[in-house]
């Protein structure tokens, strides 16, 4: 309960902070449109040569793109900024200020930053998804909607856990900025369903960097491809990753000695 109140307050502060820089909203809108435009051009080029890719047709891949943009927005609004701040705080010894507060360390370090304007991506992604769904005369059922949102939630939690694991290594290796760069490169693979990649890459994108669960699985839920097994698999992996990341963070915090104190 206290955790929720804490998250709410940080969210409020984050939003007020962003409102000081309203011009950034316009820049964000432009960036989103450019990214959307290049994405659509890529999609059109592929489908000017073929009518389906790895068993997915054009509108289905448009849905994948919608999920990809939405999830990218969630990551850049709420996950990545917190993890980057954690990395910097570990390096500069500023984490002392968070650790001395009487709240759960993991909750605190996960809610401190929020980039409101990134939600432009979330909204745009949802619109793209809506357009795709209306084109494929999709039968709306309670189950598919539930499956989609639960898969999206689990995907976001998995990406968060992955980031937390990577960031926690900053307790031992200080230079991890390049790993963030690596994540962005690999996340781009989620623009296409992971089924089209060679096996070794598909395994890496499923279990090492959970891009498959973050983008492909929610899209599968909407296009009627998701089996109960996959859904249960996602649930299991989410729980495993969550426990693993929390354990690693606790372990890392024990070896944190602060730089300034």
């Amino acid at each position: 309960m206290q955790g929720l109140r804490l998250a709410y307050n940080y969210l409020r502060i984050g939003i007020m902070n962003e409102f000081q820089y309203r011009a950034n909203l316009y820049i964000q809108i432009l960036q989103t449109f450019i990214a959307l435009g290049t994405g659509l051009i890529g999609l059109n080029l592929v489908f000017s040569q073929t009518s389906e890719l790895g068993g997915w047709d054009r509108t289905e891949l448009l849905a994948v793109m919608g999920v990809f943009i939405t999830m990218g927005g969630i990551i850049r609004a709420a996950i990545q900024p917190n993890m980057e701040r954690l990395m910097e705080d570990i390096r500069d010894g500023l984490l002392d200020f968070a650790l001395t507060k009487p709240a759960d360390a993991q909750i605190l370090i996960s809610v401190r930053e929020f980039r409101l304007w990134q939600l432009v991506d979330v909204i745009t992604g949802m619109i793209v998804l809506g357009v795709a769904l209306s084109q494929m005369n999709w039968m709306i059922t309670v189950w598919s909607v539930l499956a989609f949102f639960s898969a999206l939630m689990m995907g976001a939690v998995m990406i968060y856990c992955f980031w937390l694991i990577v960031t926690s290594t900053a307790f031992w290796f200080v230079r991890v900025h390049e790993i963030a760069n690596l994540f962005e490169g690999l996340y781009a693979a989620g623009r296409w369903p992971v089924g089209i990649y060679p096996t070794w890459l598909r395994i890496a994108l499923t279990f090492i960097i959970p891009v498959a669960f973050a983008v492909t699985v929610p899209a599968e839920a909407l296009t009627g491809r998701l089996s109960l097994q996959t859904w249960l698999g996602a649930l299991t992996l989410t729980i495993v990753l969550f426990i693993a990341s929390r354990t690693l963070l606790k372990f890392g915090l024990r070896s944190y000695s602060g730089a300034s104190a």
Partner: protein
Amino acid sequence: MKRYFDYYTSMMKISVLEQWQYPVANYFYMIGMIAEPVIYMVVWSSVATQQGGMVGGYTPGAFAAYYIVWTLVRQMNIAFTPYGWEWRIRNGRLSTTLLRPIHPLHEDVAFFAGWKVVMIILWIPLAFALSLIFKPELNPTLLEGVVFFVAIWMAYLIRTITLFLLGMVTFWTTRVSALFELYFAAELILSGRLVPLSLMPAWVQELAWFFPFRWAFGYPIEVLVGQLTMTDMLIGLGMQLAWVVGGWIVVNLIWKVAIRRFSAVGG
């Protein structure tokens, strides 16, 4: 002439020594960069397989060759980012550069040329691994190899000059990120970075002639992957030379006006 030669050799030496200290950082940077062509390669190879083995004149093996050569050209393409100009101007870093009796463009060209040496050495094992996995069809002739070698350095010069020009906009306004984003999106599409230009609609291919992008990216790859006739290769080299010379003249013209707007703090 000797003055320039000495400047370039010492600047490149400094940059090699500096970058060689961070092999791991450079490697992570490179792997993050290689994810992009691998994605394109997989997508287009599977399109080609579905369409009976060939699309737009490319077989899966030819796509593999295109995108593996892509990774080398991309390394050659790295130049001082226009986003860095704001930092250069605000921190007064430019003051130091201005004190030297040499045009500041030379500093960028020499520093990044040295860095390339490190990057190419680090790139070789990665290219080897990619070739084992994706089996490119690549049989360049000696002539193509030579033209490619010249073309990638010319491409590097073109990109350095165009990004330098773009960066100079910062002398007039600091709200530049929107402009830069548009520029890079145009580059992605018109250079052959997203897909080989032969897969683009005809009007896009014609449009690409008038921009520097393809001469700084797609053209060198096409030379090595080997679909160009002798005439095409010569025309390409000519276009590259024109962009380098023309760009250098424009840089000089604008620089004279731009530098008057610069007032430094510290340095």
